[in-house]
């Protein structure tokens, strides 16, 4: 059994750990709010943009390499989004396991599968398993801005056209709520307009053939698609960051609770021990006195 001083020190250290976890929870909660705000504010833009693209593509029947939808893709580029830092529960290990599984599956069927890893955690995971990645990007959480996302999108688009990939997929944690994340694998390039809701609702009849374009539609579609992909990348990044903070928040919440429980049980042991030692001392004194009397 540990002595009184050890337990006292232990209680002190658990308390300070609890303070740290509580602070981290607060920080994550604040960051989560910001990330959530990001997602909400970009949704209308993303929606309108896709509408405009669909309007152009459907009214003019334009074919664009980034718009065509090949059914079976043989060369794929997987982009995995994880975080740079840990202490967020199963957030990173789940996404890594999932990505690894998909990677192995694809490697069997497809001609070529390449990985781009965003976030240090997935880079470390795949490095430990001797899986080579095409590229790795770190220090993301600090600068999730639209500009940054646009740069990544630009790079991906170059990779897409130069690397001869059939599709680019993003694997990331989708933000469901502050306590729930869902891992999704989503195809970013090329976009499949037939799956968007516009063609279903017959929205393409909104325009007559005499839609005025300034400048030429072909030229404009290029820019619009670039914008669209930048927005998609930005959305995925924001989702992943929001999910990370949500995961960290609940992990830290649990840690704080566990620490409280531990402090309680340690305090109990401490008190028991203290009382036991007082009792022993009293017995010693009284029995000493009794012995002297005798």
């Amino acid at each position, binding site marked *: 059994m540990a002595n009184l001083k050890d337990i006292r020190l232990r209680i002190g250290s658990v308390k300070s750990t609890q303070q740290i976890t509580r602070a981290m929870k607060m920080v994550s909660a604040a960051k989560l709010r910001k990330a959530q705000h*990001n997602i909400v*504010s*970009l949704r*209308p*833009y993303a929606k*309108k*943009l896709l*509408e*405009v693209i669909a*309007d*152009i593509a459907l009214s003019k029947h334009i074919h664009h390499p980034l718009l065509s939808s090949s059914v079976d893709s043989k060369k794929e580029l997987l982009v995995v989004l994880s975080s740079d830092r840990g202490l967020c529960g199963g957030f990173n290990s789940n996404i890594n396991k999932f990505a690894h599984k998909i990677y192995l599956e694809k490697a069997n069927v497809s001609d070529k599968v390449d990985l781009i890893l965003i976030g240090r955690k997935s880079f470390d995971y795949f490095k430990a398993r001797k899986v080579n990645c095409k590229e790795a990007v770190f220090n993301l959480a600090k600068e999730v801005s*639209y500009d940054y996302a646009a740069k990544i999108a630009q790079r991906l688009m170059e990779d897409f056209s130069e690397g001869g990939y059939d599709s680019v997929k993003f694997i990331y944690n989708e933000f469901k709520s502050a306590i729930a994340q869902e891992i999704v694998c989503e195809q970013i390039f090329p976009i499949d307009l037939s799956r968007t809701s516009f063609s279903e609702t017959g929205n393409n009849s*909104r*325009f*007559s053939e*005499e*839609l*005025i*374009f*300034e*400048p030429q*539609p072909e030229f*404009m579609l290029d*820019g*619009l698609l670039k*914008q669209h992909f*930048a*927005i998609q990348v*930005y959305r995925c990044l924001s989702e992943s960051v929001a999910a990370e903070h949500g995961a960290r928040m609940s992990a830290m919440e649990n840690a704080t609770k566990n620490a409280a429980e531990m402090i309680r049980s340690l305090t109990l042991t401490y008190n028991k021990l203290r009382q036991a030692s007082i009792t022993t001392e009293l017995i010693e004194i009284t029995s000493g006195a009794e012995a002297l009397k005798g």
Partner: protein
Amino acid sequence: MFLLTYVTPEKKVVSDLEVDQVTVPAYRGQLTLLPGHAPLISTLGVGLIKYRPKGKSEEITSLVSWGYCEVNPTGVNILAETAESLEEIDRERAENDARMMQKKLTEPNLEPNQIMKYQRKLQKALARIEASKNV
């Protein structure tokens, strides 16, 4: 019904606001859109967007830079890269930016995409200066 939706990736300026007229810096210069305009899709440059909410006499002005403008039978959609209200503009900073970009553009051996980047920044700074005169 003539509804204006005006959004950027980072914020929503207005959504489904009923307006009487909208003026945008379109591909071929300033373009004023009224209800019943023919369907149109145009790129936007850098400049001022003005719109008048229905029933109001005052126009709301904001600075927009690059993006797209779509006119359909129900209204106008503006997808801008950035949108700033006139109060947000820091004239001194814009003037500094403009000077710096002008200086950078005179440097020898610039790559084409660098030139484009600087020109865009210069354009934006000049538009900001112009906009701040209107306050």
